[in-house]
């Protein structure tokens, strides 16, 4: 298993850099992962999306449907890509410490 060093703390990640131990996630992890994609400042909008993702994940063990995410956070898809450069799955979920969904997606 690969590991990454985020501000001196080691985390297990998959080949795409998704955290393998969601319970170890902290806000600093999100900041560090965002930094790796060139986003140095996390706004309230970022947190709104990530907090929604984390709460949903804790209740459901999976990420929400994108449609539901945009509807319930009020952040439209286009804006989502502005906030999270690689989109809701590859950036937002990753920064929020969710694993990557697999299958016909």
């Amino acid at each position, binding site marked *: *298993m690969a590991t990454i060093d985020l501000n001196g703390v080691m985390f297990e990640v*998959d*080949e*795409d850099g998704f955290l393998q131990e969601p319970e170890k996630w902290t806000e600093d992890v999100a900041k560090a992962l965002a930094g790796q994609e060139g986003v140095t400042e996390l706004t309230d909008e970022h947190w709104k999306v990530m907090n929604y993702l984390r709460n949903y994940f804790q209740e*459901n*063990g*999976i990420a929400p*449907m*994108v*449609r*539901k995410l945009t509807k319930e956070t009020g952040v439209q898809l286009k804006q989502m890509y502005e906030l999270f450069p*690689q989109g809701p799955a*590859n950036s937002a979920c990753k920064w929020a410490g969710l694993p990557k*969904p*697999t*299958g*016909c*997606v």
Partner: protein
Amino acid sequence: MAAKYSQKDLLEVDGKAPGTSWMDVKTVLKKGRYSYSGNPRHVEYLGLPNPREWQPHDGDWKLPENWKEIVLEGFRERLKKHRSLKLYMDICVRCGACADKCHYYIGSGDEKNMPVVRAELMRSVYRRYFTLSGRVFGRLVGARDLTEEVIREWFYYFYQCSECRRCSVYCPYGIDTAEITMMGRELLNLIGLNINWIIEPASNCFRTGNHLGIQPHTFHDNLEFACEEIQEMTGIAVEPSINRKGAEILLVVPSADLFADPHIYTLYGYLMLLHEIGLDYTFSAYASEGGNFGLFHSNELMKRLNAKIYTEARRLGVKWILGGECGHMWRVAHQYMDTMNGPADFLETPRSPVTGTVFHNAAGTGMVHLCEFTADLIHHGRLVLDRSRNAAVRVTHHDSCNTARAMGLLEEPRYILRNSCEHFHDMPENTIREHTFCCGSGSGVGTDENLEMRLRGGLPRAAAVRYVRERHGVNMLSCICAIDKATLPALMQFWVPGVEVCGVHELLGNALVMKGESERTVNLRGETLAEAGHEKE
């Protein structure tokens, strides 16, 4: 994601033969053309051999000490068990009719992607260990030793085949090269060589009922969310049921229809249609997956996963099963299910309660494809369809490999599209129906890390879409497979920007006039009807 490749780079394919025997060409694994290994947690969960940390780009694949023995013994067993495999190993005359029919060969120019050569990777080993001439004459008769190098080559090329079976259409002997790949993957799996995109969904399917890992309460919530959306758009309250005993019909769809984009709009279409005709049906949270990633791993795993559908149909006491827009499910249902998990003697021969049509073709499995069912409804005039709501859509249809070649479902989706849309244009003849080109991502290889190979393999399909886009202004590509819906958008974005991807039942849902509905101002994607279909930035 696709930005790191350019069309120009991927089009530079010379396709020249290397001038030496393929056996002398060393296989080098290139990044972008393979997928990551199975996560040991999921390998273990499924009880499969050799769970461990490893990656294809590692020098050491951590094979078991007696790997060679395991593979050869596995090969021997399978030759004995599957007469088809022995036949396919023996009868190829290397005429080359299949050589240029593979989308991966067309897109990569790598001769080991010619179906005939891909099969030779395995045949050469077969000859060496299981034929007298091969044992005696070795390379003279195309035989070679099984080495770790050969295993690496198998891994690389058997996961560069999407088991789409286009090559088989052209084989004068009817060799099913997908079955060779399937056997190759089985042998690799015996020593723990697999990819995570297959192993994790299969493991999820056991754990939660479906590939995505949607748990029952989430399955319920997602359906409810879909119903809320439908109510907002149509004013109609749709109430589907889950796990309801005594329902007449069990509906099985790919789980991505309850999760991903653009799949969910197809789900809206199903829900609206089945509500409108008042069908007595239920979903199941246990059999909540149509797709079968076991098919991409081994016969054994395919059988274990598929068994859930009959188990649930029996438990709920339904009369028959309706299946949604899922590709590989239909390869399994149509070609293996009957003898593998059947007989389905507890089911009845499916009969549409609306039209009275009896689906004798599905008597064996008790499973009817929703497109057949819907086409029958339209044929009997049971649906009111307003095609003008899809006026902005200029659609062409991608025949999903498995529904087309594995079950012959060719006319029904087109019939639904013509009745739901004003503008339907087929792609050239040699790229559709049984000649259809794969999306480039089937059979579990639709991963981000395999993107280069997917874009290469998807080139022939994309070129055919481009043809109808240039001639007829096509802006929508419909399909009836969840892998298509997941992977064609990236393919279109790369090769033919401006073409979106949808399911057939999404367009049907747009056109469907429902009793008591409010005036429809948006399509199922929530886009204003007047604007829909206008190309987005």
